């Protein structure tokens, strides 16, 4: 973890509510796709944890959905403004555990971290199949971005207004030997049921600090208690203890 000042390079809407923000600054604390940063915002007490979509040595890209005060404040920010961020948070995805054919499953605001992951998997010579799930056509984003990387991309919409009608689990490909998922908890649960292989899933929880100090985001796993912000947000399918 590192505390950094990031400069906003751009901040543009991708859909009616999802924004893409490019930030420049020290990214040396990041080591894996699927990690997150924690942003301090004026007048709001807690930092806002946002997953990293992509990063390189010059900066990071984040995508965020406007859902409350914090994200509304972010959406109003202009290039040139700065943000106080804690960087390099969370464990991130481990691509080493994946075979030659990776399946990536993203739902809504769970899509962003899969982008950097997809890049890393492709760079390592693996084949990548991506299934993105959204509620409706207007909410679809990053389909072409994944395609441009060289992945095989399928989109599913719950209302059938675009791509396959249904959930990501209705659009699973025939062959893959490992999966990575990020999305709302009901989707993650359905993904675990529908997939026949091992995989890694990224979880969300309301956080206090985001770096393991407060124990606010703990969960029980089959391998012990874990902090979503520190030993997570990525858990392996086999260790997850589903509630109810």
């Amino acid at each position: 973890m590192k505390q950094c000042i990031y400069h906003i390079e751009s901040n543009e809407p991708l859909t009616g509510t999802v924004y893409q923000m490019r930030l420049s600054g020290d990214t040396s604390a990041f080591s894996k796709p699927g990690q997150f940063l924690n942003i301090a915002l004026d007048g709001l007490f807690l930092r806002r944890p946002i997953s990293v979509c992509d990063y390189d040595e010059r900066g990071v890209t984040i995508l965020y959905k406007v859902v409350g005060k914090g994200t509304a404040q972010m959406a109003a920010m202009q290039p040139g403004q700065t943000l106080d961020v804690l960087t390099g948070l969370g464990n991130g995805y481990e691509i080493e555990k994946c075979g030659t054919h990776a399946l990536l499953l993203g739902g809504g605001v769970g899509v962003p971290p899969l982008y950097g992951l997809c890049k890393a998997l492709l760079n390592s010579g693996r084949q990548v199949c991506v299934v993105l799930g959204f509620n409706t056509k207007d909410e679809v984003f990053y389909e072409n971005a994944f395609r441009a990387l060289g992945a095989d991309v399928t989109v599913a919409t719950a209302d059938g207004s675009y791509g396959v009608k249904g959930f990501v689990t209705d659009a699973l490909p025939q062959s893959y030997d490992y999966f990575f998922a990020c999305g709302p908890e009901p989707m993650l649960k359905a993904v675990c049921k529908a997939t026949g292989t091992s995989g890694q899933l990224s979880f969300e929880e309301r956080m206090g600090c985001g770096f393991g100090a407060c124990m606010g985001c703990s969960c029980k796993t089959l391998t012990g208690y874990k902090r979503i912000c520190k030993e997570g947000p990525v858990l392996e399918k086999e260790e997850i203890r589903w509630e109810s």
Partner: protein
Amino acid sequence: MGKLNVNLCGIELDNPIIPASGTFGFGYEFAELYDINCLGTFSFKGTTRQPRFGNPTPRIAECTAGMINAVGLQNPGVEQVIAQELPKLQKVFHKPVMANVSGFCVSDYAETCAMLDNQPQVGWLEVNVSCPNVHGGGMSFGVDPDAAAEVVRAVKAVTTKPVIVKLSPNVTDIVAIAKACEDAGADGISLINTLLGMRIDLRTRKPVIANKMGGFSGPAVFPVAVRMVYQVAHAVNIPVVGMGGVSSAQDVIEMMLAGATAVEIGTMNLIDPFACKKIIEDLPRVMEQYNISSLADIIKGVG
């Protein structure tokens, strides 16, 4: 003796800054960020006789100038703390540490404290009496002078280390509780623990916190903390450790003027992991601004 030094129950501190229990773990997360030996000491994660997962999530709610937590004393239990956490801590922290202890019956407290009494690195026992008493209808030990005093007597019987009692602010008469603890043999008082608070999610119409209510902390509670530190420090003859919403060197000085011998910093560690380090570095400049040559001189200095 440096101008930041204070003496807390017979142990010299390089400065009065103490990260509060539950916001600093067992120190490792922070030791990766900075050399935590710059601290006066720190109060480690509230430890109980048995391991605890704590409450269901969500455990955190945001508030104006503060937050609510209902972690529920997640900790590995005192045996694990002694077997695993303290040996690791020794490697990164070379000062006496404050052991924060919680319990749900008097014997819990006594057993946990007795085990920690053998640990050379433990300098003080900070006994959190805000926990529900399972033999007392679930009411907190800390809201009743007799129950609080009973905990203090049980703990004092099993340890020679200084015992600091951490008080709940959710009471009518904080002075009565503090005096009862002093009379029962407490070596110090720390306060305030969190205020009981609640937030409701307008979308779901449910409490934000799974446990409904939780402990409210952060800069919002500072005026209540200053008041209680003032009241207690002027009523007892043992040192008081002040805490509650402290977020700057100025706040530290205000707490010490009110009567605090040392000052715990809690919630701010979660927002700015460097908060304690920055405050320690900032203190000499702010002291100069207010013509303070030694922090020890201003304890209870309010006129």
